């Protein structure tokens, strides 16, 4: 079965529409979404409505959570003061815009979705604020997949799609406890695991304004990273018309994302 997985739509209705058309072309039977439906972009309500009307199973993103719970993203999850100030502006704007039923919908989204040997999260199994970057230490990356109890871990949050293969993992452990006279040696092996980051529909960061998502075939295990052009100028215009900071439009048009990523991949908010 072919499935499509997407993330980080961020109120970009134009991009979502075009991605849905592209998904149709690839005849994916099921669509999953790993969160961040709202935030930064000009159409939070419309995006949520479309996702709901199509009954797309969705995991909660950090922006979805923050709109429900109040701004809880810790300062340290912003890479800079400027990004934080911009993030707060976007949060306030979105908070004012979203309809009560949208907020309710976002509130009930689960942190994790599970389907056989597939797991779907926004950031990582630990937290929807944690970034699984492609350069993250391979053992730490493996630990995240193992923690999800799946073979394939789908995530988003970093806005740059990638497929990471983690194979032939081996670990030798020697355990010594004073009550047992002898040391125990244990060997651990982990079979092939993968992290698939599905990129971002509405807020790309790979240097081009196009939307990205992933098609995955559960039988052949083939992954296709999709990059879809859409009329980003429409979204840029809407950003300005609807009173969001014009710099968001400028950055969107260049595939620079709005606020940049946090640089510590393992940082987890302790609040």
């Amino acid at each position, binding site marked *: 079965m072919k499935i499509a997985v997407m993330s980080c739509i961020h109120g970009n209705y134009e991009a979502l529409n075009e991605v849905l058309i592209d998904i149709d072309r690839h005849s994916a039977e099921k669509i999953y979404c790993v969160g961040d439906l709202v935030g930064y972009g000009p159409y939070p309500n419309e995006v949520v409505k479309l996702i709901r009307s199509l009954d797309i199973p969705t995991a909660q993103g950090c922006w979805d959570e923050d709109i429900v719970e109040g701004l809880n993203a810790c300062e340290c999850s912003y890479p800079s003061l400027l990004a934080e100030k911009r993030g707060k502006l976007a949060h306030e704007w979105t908070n004012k815009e979203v309809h009560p039923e949208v907020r309710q919908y976002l509130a009930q989204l689960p942190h994790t979705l599970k389907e056989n040997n597939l797991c779907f999260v926004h950031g990582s199994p630990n937290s929807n604020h944690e970034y699984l970057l492609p350069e993250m230490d391979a*053992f730490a990356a*493996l630990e995240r997949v193992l923690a999800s109890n799946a073979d394939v871990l789908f995530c988003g949050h970093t806005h740059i799609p990638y497929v990471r*293969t983690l194979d032939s993992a081996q670990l030798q452990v020697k355990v010594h406890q004073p009550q047992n006279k002898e040391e125990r040696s244990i060997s651990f092996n982990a079979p092939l695991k993968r992290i698939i980051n599905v990129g971002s529909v509405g807020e790309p960061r790979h240097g081009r304004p196009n939307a990205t998502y992933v098609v995955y075939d559960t039988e052949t295990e083939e992954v296709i990273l999709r990059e879809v052009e859409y009329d980003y100028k429409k979204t840029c215009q809407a950003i300005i018309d609807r009173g969001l900071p014009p710099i968001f439009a400028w950055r969107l048009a260049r595939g620079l994302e709005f606020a940049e990523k946090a640089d510590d991949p393992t940082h987890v908010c302790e609040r």
Partner: protein
Amino acid sequence: MWAILSGIEGNLAAYEAVLADIKRQRVTVEELYILGDLVAAKPESEKVIKRIQNPLSGELQPQVCVGWWEEQCFALHGLGSLAEPTELIARYGKQTAKLLWDSVSRETVQWLRGLHFGFFELDCLLIHGSSVSVSDELTPQTPPWQMLDRLQRVQANSLFCGRSGQVFECQLQSASIATSVVTLDNKQPVQTVTTLQKRVVGVGNVGREAGKATYTLYNPKSARLDFKTVFYGCQKGFGS
């Protein structure tokens, strides 16, 4: 030589027994680390704090970091990262929460607030739980991938912890993994990553079990470990 202990849990007699045992060592102990859980829902908690704050002459000034019980105190007093002491109540019930409130004064809680989260010395992380949180309990049964993750979060080669109360040494000997990344514009070939020897050490628990305290001696030069068990007379009418 370092002496590393954890989990006094308001048991003054146990702490005294360990201090006495440290003095008896042939090798001089140069640093004394207490990895949290100085207090617990025990009336003697205050006395333990006073004893730690005021070492006798000739005794080492202990280096102390926060533990799980301290974190519960912060939550009770509304000073911590948690809004409610939910973990405490879920685990021990409201009665214990009340007892903890009565056992540790606000003044002491303020003092505890000033403690470190953990210590990083040489290539060793000394901490109550792990680099994730005070509640993170590492045991010999913890999946080794998880242990490796806890070490790598802070780039440490050794992690000394006390949450489980168990005494153990878990050596992660050889580890390897083949990894490759494909992005929209790039296909990185398979790389094999290996890691050097690392270990997680459970330093034991001083006060939880009456009459028996465990702690750890560590020589940072030779990286040698020595687990110590101290049996001591149980004073009547206290604790368990």
